């Protein structure tokens, strides 16, 4: 049944994250809505893009003070939930796909056990049914020989396959919101595209929202309907096309990337002074 619900999956207003007594907030006054669409968050390391993703999942450590005027997931405030309620949401309704499958998969359990565990936890199936669900899901992420892969350990599979397994595990429960934090940075260019296409296809099929966090502004622009550009904890610009970029930081980021079609002798580097002036008038 298609979901005709028009309310945003996630609605964030004035999200602030501060670590310890640090006077500089890691994330300040970030506001955005995610519907049944794909939005991208781009920025350099330290810009607060991953912290935003983790704040939504409530995965930040205790010393991080997270405040927001509103952070609603399907209409209910995330910040008021208990740890137990969050545990029920994580993985089932909100999924997080991280950068490197080698660190997110348990090295001493087989792929089959781990994917079946996701089925057991979120779908309430047991034993053989859970394994069958795991096998189906692996076939869905276009793993050719799911029976063989089920019995392998994470070190025996390649990075691209590992990321497919992660996607299978995360999307098994058909989450309403998928947060993908640099899902392809650890992968080769040749498999990067396949993994992104697959993620895109499954998210569309489930009619979920996707937040794609990456430093690669071109890739994000190719995949997402809207792009939030973050710089030093703030959203400096929201774009739907790269050509519309007006903020000097976004323009600087685009110009800093070498483009084989328009070769230049020297690449432009970011002029951080003028960006500071622009962001803190």
């Amino acid at each position, binding site marked *: 049944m298609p979901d005709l619900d028009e309310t945003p999956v996630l609605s964030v207003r004035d999200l602030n994250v501060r670590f310890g007594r640090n006077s500089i907030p890691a994330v300040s006054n970030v506001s955005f809505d995610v519907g049944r669409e794909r939005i991208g968050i781009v920025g*350099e390391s330290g810009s607060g893009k991953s912290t935003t993703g983790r704040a939504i999942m409530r995965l930040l450590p205790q010393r991080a003070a997270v405040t927001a005027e509103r952070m609603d997931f399907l209409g209910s405030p995330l910040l008021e939930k208990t740890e137990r309620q969050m545990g029920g949401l994580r993985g089932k309704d909100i999924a997080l796909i991280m950068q490197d499958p080698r660190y997110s998969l348990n090295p001493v359990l087989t792929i089959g056990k781990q994917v079946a565990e996701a089925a057991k936890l979120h779908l309430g199936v047991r034993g053989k049914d859970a394994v069958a669900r795991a096998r189906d899901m692996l076939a869905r992420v276009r793993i050719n020989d799911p029976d063989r892969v089920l019995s392998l350990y994470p070190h025996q599979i390649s990075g691209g396959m590992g990321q497919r397994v992660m996607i299978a595990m995360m999307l098994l429960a058909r989450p309403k919101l998928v947060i993908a934090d640099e899902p392809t940075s650890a992968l080769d*260019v040749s498999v990067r595209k396949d993994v992104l296409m697959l993620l895109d296809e499954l998210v569309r099929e489930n009619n979920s929202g996707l937040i794609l966090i990456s430093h690669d502004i071109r890739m994000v622009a190719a995949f997402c309907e809207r792009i939030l550009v973050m710089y030093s904890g703030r959203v400096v610009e929201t774009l739907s096309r790269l050509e519309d970029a007006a903020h000097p930081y976004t323009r600087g980021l685009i110009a800093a990337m070498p483009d084989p079609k328009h*070769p230049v002798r020297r690449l432009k*580097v970011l002029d951080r002074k003028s960006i500071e002036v622009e962001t803190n008038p």
Partner: protein
Amino acid sequence: MIKVENLDVVYGAKDKSNHVVRGVSFAVSRGETLGIVGESGCGKSTVLRSLAGLEGAWTGSISFDGKPVGKVRTREELKLAQMVFQDPYGSLHPRHRIGTALAEPIRSMGGGDGWARVAEALQQVGLPAHFASRFPHELSGGQRQRVAIARALILSPPILLLDEPTSALDVSIQAEVLNLLADQREDRNLTFILVSHDLSVISHMCDRVLVMQNGVFVDELSREDLQAGVTHASYSRELFEASFL
């Protein structure tokens, strides 16, 4: 400047052997930048490591500046080619100050204690001289990669071997490091071999690109080919399409 003929690298023995590089030959002239591109495991880094003298299991012939070099290098041969690795954090000793790390190549090549040249080496890569007293963890990723480049250049080698020098860096920092490399190439008339999986970086830096797959070169592209998007093999076509979404 660099001439490689029938380079073969095999790891392991008999039925467990893994033929990583299969008889590759290429030549790079002085001042030229050659790019090698391919996916992980195709053998591109192994070619570079063999050139740098870090690999012991190669056969074939390698010569720098017309003189053949063997598996065990003399000091003079080692001074000809220096390498910059992907992750600068892994290539700098965590408990040595930057100054110690920079002076070490000179010391180990028998050129005195090397301290006199540390400040100059830092300034050449755009870092303040007082960074010599810092530790690697006190520097950002881009600054660490600058130190790694300074360390490779401190022996004034005519050849620089670059193994994914910017893949651990942000695009904005990547631009700074690529500019630094281009400046140094111009100032010192350096010869580069740049290994990367990022075609846009390769086509920005290189005069010529070799596409590698399963230990052999399947395609050679000139600067003009890269700009026009011309390829001569199906694999390089695939790589091209995957790189530019």
